[in-house]
């Protein structure tokens, strides 16, 4: 089991990363990453509220000028917290912006590769679309093999 200071550190990183990602969704106009559907710009006030609040929470929990995490521990726990924050942001935005992005999927540029795809669809929709493409490809391969036999 993780110690309390370590868990607090990871939660702090998770929350602040979610805040950063909402600000970035607002900046890039990535509706698919935003928690606010049609209004991704609400990500700015959300970030302004959540990021400082997470700092205040972490530093008010305990005196941080004592021996604690250092070096590699800080780096690896940051990576873990940031990854969890990314997963939380992708999952929540996939739920909250699902209806919005479903309408936009037929818009020009909907098939962009990379992060810009989040302008038109949620990450869950991207995963579903990729999964569908893979299933079709596997199906075609199997059909081809059966026809050869």
């Amino acid at each position, binding site marked *: 089991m993780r110690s309390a200071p370590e868990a607090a*550190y990871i939660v*702090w*990183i998770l929350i*602040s*990363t979610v805040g*950063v*990602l909402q*600000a*970035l969704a607002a*900046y*890039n106009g990535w509706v698919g990453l935003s928690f606010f559907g049609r209004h991704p710009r609400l990500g700015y006030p959300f970030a302004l509220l959540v*990021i400082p609040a997470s*700092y205040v929470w*972490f*530093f008010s929990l305990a005196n*941080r*000028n*004592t*021996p*604690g*995490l*250092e*070096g*590699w521990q*800080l*780096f690896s726990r*940051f990576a873990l917290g*940031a990854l969890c924050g*990314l997963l939380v942001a992708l999952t929540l935005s996939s739920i909250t912006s699902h209806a919005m992005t479903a309408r936009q999927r037929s818009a020009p540029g909907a098939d962009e*590769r*990379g*992060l*810009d*795809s*989040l302008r038109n669809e949620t*990450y869950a929709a*991207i995963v579903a679309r990729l999964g569908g493409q893979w299933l079709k490809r596997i199906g075609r391969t199997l059909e081809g093999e059966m026809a050869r036999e």
Partner: protein
Amino acid sequence: MSSIVAFDVWLFRQINGFVGTFPLFDRFMSTVVNEYLITVTLSLVVFGLWFVGASPAARQSNQRAVIYAVLGEVVANSIVVLNNALYYRPRPFATLQVNLLFYEPTDSSMPSNPAAVAFAFATAVWMVNRRAGALLYALAVLFALSRVYCGVHYPLDVVGGALAGALGALIAVRLGRTVLAPVVDGIIGVGRRLYLA
């Protein structure tokens, strides 16, 4: 050599001697000095940089900077570890009467590891993105200054740490643009295939 050390101790006394003059400033510096506040802020800026760019090409350039920064931190840390194995300098509070606003670390004072980490991040990013790099340099300087102000490092320690960090970043960028270029491209390629780059 001894005159440089004497100047270092004199400068330390001047900076650390300010403690107690402005209690609010002391509070600010003792909040900044720990391993968490500045390092996490630096890391969040670097994390955010992965997702920023006016065009896909600009974003890819920033993503390279993020990879260089992580690699730079590894190289800088290795330099510090190697140095600590060969040389030990006692902390200021071990030999002088200081105004200590932090706990007493036991590792070598020279070079400052926190300064090395902060300057490795800042230098690696600055070589690709000047604006983000300047912001990180400002945070790194504040971090280094706080370590002296709070009595855990001599000025020369943080200068040594900054040089170790900058050297680590320069090596990382050099490696990232030559020998490790396929690895850097591979990481970005995988990210792009996962729609995360």
